[in-house]
């Protein structure tokens, strides 16, 4: 697979943005895709506005909107901690499994390569929610190994369910990064008598890490905002607890501010990740 692009030519860089039509210049493109502080400001303005509107609808004698939100904040925080835990564990499992799968996709052994490709495509193109339901329904609630019983609580099952699409995406990241390394690197390593395995581990993969880090962080941000999916299968994470809090309050005007509030939590968590990803991308960009 890798050996198709046999060439002595230098790899051409992207064209400079001199075209007068046919696409945005690279500067304009970058600007359009970047998450900037202004986006956060708009979100918080929305939150304040929602609180204001809700406050106006509050019936006399009931506690204020902000006070109510603050009352539920410790509970929401505990739920959000579970979201973070799910995202961490799912990312760790998905990365480890996806890495192996990605290596499998460039294997010289055809059956291995084809099956790694199939598994990758299957999990990459399945809806996340469907995978989540599969895991909830197909995994047992406990695993018995000899005499020890390992319980599998719902949130662990959900974590595994979310790890599957992460795995498939990491697999593609690894495969793409390996194939983006110029063929000359393989050739010179081979001429120095490195084995294929040595070449992969000592020469190719170390160069891939830098290329893979920004999209990998991006994937993590996507995974984090996908963790509320676990609420649908009954895991007590932030989204579920928000719904519980709303049910307990029974006040319609709270609906919009509370969900806005939850959104703000995710934004605050993901914003630094997005900024760091952009900074890394700029540093590793082709000049």
């Amino acid at each position, binding site marked *: 697979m890798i050996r198709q692009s046999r060439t002595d030519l230098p790899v051409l860089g992207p064209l400079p943005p001199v075209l007068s039509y046919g696409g945005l210049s690279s500067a304009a493109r970058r600007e359009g895709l970047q998450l900037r502080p202004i986006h956060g400001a708009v979100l918080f303005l929305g939150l304040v506005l929602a609180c204001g509107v809700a406050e106006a609808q509050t019936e006399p004698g009931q506690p204020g909107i902000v006070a109510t939100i603050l009352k539920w904040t410790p509970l929401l925080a505990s739920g959000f901690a579970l979201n973070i835990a799910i995202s961490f564990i799912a990312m760790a499992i998905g990365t480890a499994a996806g890495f192996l799968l990605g290596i499998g996709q460039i294997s010289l052994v055809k059956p291995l390569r084809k099956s790694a490709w199939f598994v990758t495509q299957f999990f990459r193109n399945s809806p996340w929610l469907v995978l989540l339901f599969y895991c909830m329904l197909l995994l047992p609630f406990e695993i018995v190994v000899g005499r020890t019983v390992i319980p599998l609580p719902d949130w662990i099952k959900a974590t595994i369910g979310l790890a599957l699409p992460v795995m498939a995406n990491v697999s593609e990241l690894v495969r793409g990064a390996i194939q983006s390394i110029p063929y000359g690197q393989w050739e*010179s*390593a081979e001429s120095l008598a490195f084995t294929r395995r040595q070449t992969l581990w*000592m020469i190719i993969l170390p160069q891939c890490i830098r290329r893979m880090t920004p999209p990998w962080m991006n994937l993590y941000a996507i995974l984090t905002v996908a963790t509320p999916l676990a609420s649908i299968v009954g895991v007590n994470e932030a989204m579920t607890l928000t719904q519980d809090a709303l049910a307990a309050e029974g006040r319609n005007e709270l609906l919009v501010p509370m969900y806005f509030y939850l959104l703000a939590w995710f934004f605050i968590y993901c914003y630094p990740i997005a900024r760091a990803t952009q900074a890394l991308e700029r540093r590793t960009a082709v000049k």
Partner: protein
Amino acid sequence: MSWTPKEPIVSVRDVHKRFGAVEVLKGVSFDVMKGEVICIIGPSGSGKSTLLRCINALVPIEQGSILVEGQEVHDPALDKLALRRKVGMVFQQYNLFPHKTALQNVMMAPLHVLKQDKAEVEARARRLIKKVRLEGKEDAYPGELSGGQQQRVAIARSLAMSPDVMLFDEVTAALDPETVKEVLVTIRELAAEGMTCLLVTHEMGFARELADHIYFTDRGVIVEHGPPAEFFANAKDPRTRQFLSQIL
């Protein structure tokens, strides 16, 4: 092994190679004696680079035989490690490992492939870097070096395996005119030390000065060959003359 230095160190016999429908080598034969400098010249696409890669077993051949120190390169049972210890190769695009410093680039293969002692490898690598006149650049990364400097690191990296034959594949073709010289100086020194060198090159002046024998290839065959004085002065084949008239 039965090979003695009196026999050719590289012996190419009737080598054929095709990429799909394109036959790049159509029966090439030549011999190289130990310590000789051979230049292979010819128009683009005449199979020069492929020929070098066949000698190093980077590219398999369909027909014919290539012996390096008496050993058949395309024998399926060949110990490729043993072959590649004997044959070093330098590429047009340098192909240094960009995540390693110059010194690490030179040290990697002896350390991890030959499993030699680290202190000894490092001492040798430092000597080689000095030899290619890059003292002080040991800790520079390839991205911080000029093309000519990178190419000299690549030469040092090949030499670190202590090869008996060096293959140079258009090693100056990607360089600025000013830096071409520094690389040629390095190759000249190697040749003077008695290293067997096979060069694919477009540097005619260099070929004329340094080569013991020149081969002109066109469309997969050796059209003409001879010692440089004779080759440049009275080329007989019209294709050679046309090529030389365009280049000189």
